[in-house]
């Protein structure tokens, strides 16, 4: 087997772990790939490098390939979401001023109840300046869903600003924003630097939200089926390794290396283990499924997740929701997932879409080997999203 070189871009975030582990622990080599990982300064840079062919694949925000398929953001080169690299993993934090106002109002964050937290937040402050890593991100979608309600929302209802993840802690410390939604470890770094406090994990809004995908250009995956399969299998094996709780500190140690995140392993381990510290001197809070790489079919690129993203974006940007959701489903390549991961004996769900938000508890579902358990995946407001009308 000839070892093939492949360059994959990533942002310095805990949820880049499947790619970093695939390289460092030999899962890529096992699949015949010599993986070069290239860190990016911002999501737009990573997207542009992917489009220009400077990198073959990338760690990418799940909504980015969808936005491109909908013609949003100026670049419309078709991208494939080959698999989901991570589920959840973001935190919402506020500046010290807002945190103090919440305290004065008698509110103690429980890091759990999204509805109560929203009520407290809106009662102590007017329009918040909100930092997110990219306009097309789960961060933006979840903030809109949480703050502006599940219904139709004016795209200008929230004052949202784009700040690359590694700069979020500085932005809130410098009073450029009042609150943020960002991927770990940048929320915990804010806490460590004393620039703000954490309010909620993103999974308090949606318990099982697709976060990053493994993305590649559609013309590249079509021309390179063999390499596509190797990369998908390497990432899948690394994600399975990451799901072993005994490997967390080793994973944190590797992510901490200067070529990856270059940050203390102790801070990276917080989100990997779900032991979050909300503010300086606050006790540790345990968060279930703070970030998920493998369990509950986390890697499966559900068409219904794509449809949710497409429909939400359509509402905000004034597009036809049915058409947008349908276009979005074509970006999430369940066909390639089934084809390329079948040799590993991965248990495949019977259907490629599901009602999102329907499961309050872990629930067995129809699958090839009969071992698949999904959920919980509820939204904080108890609504469900049925993708059926969007086919």
């Amino acid at each position, binding site marked *: *087997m000839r070892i093939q070189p492949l360059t994959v871009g990533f942002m310095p975030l805990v949820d880049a772990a499947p790619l970093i582990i695939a390289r*460092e622990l030999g899962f890529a080599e096992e699949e015949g790939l010599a993986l070069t990982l290239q860190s990016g300064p911002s999501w737009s840079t990573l997207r542009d490098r992917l489009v220009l062919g400077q990198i073959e694949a990338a760690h990418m925000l799940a909504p980015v390939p969808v936005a491109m398929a909908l013609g949003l953001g100026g670049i419309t080169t078709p991208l494939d979401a080959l698999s989901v690299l991570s589920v959840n993993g973001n935190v919402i934090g506020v500046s010290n001023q807002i945190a103090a106002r919440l305290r004065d109002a008698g509110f103690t964050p429980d890091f759990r109840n999204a509805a109560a937290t929203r009520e407290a937040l809106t009662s102590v402050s007017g329009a918040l300046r909100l930092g997110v890593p990219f306009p097309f991100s789960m961060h933006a979608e979840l903030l809109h869903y949480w703050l502006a309600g599940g219904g139709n929302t004016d795209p200008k209802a929230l004052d949202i600003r784009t700040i690359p993840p590694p700069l979020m802690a500085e932005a809130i410390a410098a009073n450029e924003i009042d609150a943020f939604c960002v991927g770990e470890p940048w929320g915990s770094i804010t806490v460590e*630097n004393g620039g703000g406090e954490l309010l909620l994990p993103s999974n308090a809004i949606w318990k099982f939200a697709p976060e990053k995908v493994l993305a590649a250009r559609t013309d590249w995956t079509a021309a390179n089926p063999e390499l596509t399969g190797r990369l998908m299998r390497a990432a899948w094996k690394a994600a399975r390794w990451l799901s072993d709780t005994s490997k967390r500190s*080793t994973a944190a140690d590797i992510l901490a*290396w*200067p070529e990856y995140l*270059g940050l203390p392993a102790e801070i990276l381990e917080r989100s990997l283990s779900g032991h979050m510290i909300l503010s300086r001197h606050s006790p540790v809070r345990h968060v279930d499924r703070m970030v998920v790489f493998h369990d509950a079919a986390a890697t499966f690129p559900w068409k219904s997740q794509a449809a949710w993203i497409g429909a939400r974006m359509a509402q905000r940007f004034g597009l036809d929701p049915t058409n947008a959701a349908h276009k979005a489903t074509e970006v999430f390549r369940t066909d390639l997932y089934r084809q390329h991961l079948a040799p590993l004996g991965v248990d495949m769900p019977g259907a490629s879409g599901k009602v999102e938000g329907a499961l309050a508890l872990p629930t067995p579902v129809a699958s090839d080997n009969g071992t698949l358990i999904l959920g919980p995946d509820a939204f904080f407001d108890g609504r469900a999203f049925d993708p059926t009308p969007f086919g």
Partner: protein
Amino acid sequence: MPSQLTILVVEPDKTRAEAIIDSLAATGDHQIRVLAGHTGLARSVAEMNPDIVLVDVTNPSRDVIEELTLASSPLERPVAMFVDRSDDSITKAAIEAGVSAYVVDGLRADRIQPVMDAAIARFHMFSRMRAELEATKRALEERKIIDRAKGILMRARGLSEDEAYALIRKTAMSQGKKIAEVAQALVTASELLS
């Protein structure tokens, strides 16, 4: 299992060598090279950089096993060794030297594929364990340096452990350096000054 492998076979018996090639060719479009003797194994391994080495030795001594294993670089690729007879000490020597599969009762063409698959899987498992161990060692070294730097600051400036760590971290962030680098610089400087 990948279907295009580069395979180096050491097989002195010509008839068996042909049977092995046929059997391997039936499982995929492999690139196969056969060596009749042990001499030149290290050179062939270096030239060919095979994905797997299969060695058939009729009645090996412990020395021969160690020599063959070493020449195949078993830490870089799976090596499967087939012997006709063996005793416990030779088996142990082979495994300790890093052979991924050690099969007594010779190299049989009909069961070469499962042995190869097992050798490859075992090799990957061990290289992963080595990589995990390396990562842990590297982190431990960094922590040792950070602990020493913390101790130096605690003594020199009368800080608590948390304060000392916070100072190192703050310095690292403001200078755009890694914590371990700042800690190392502090340890080096204090050694020069003492």
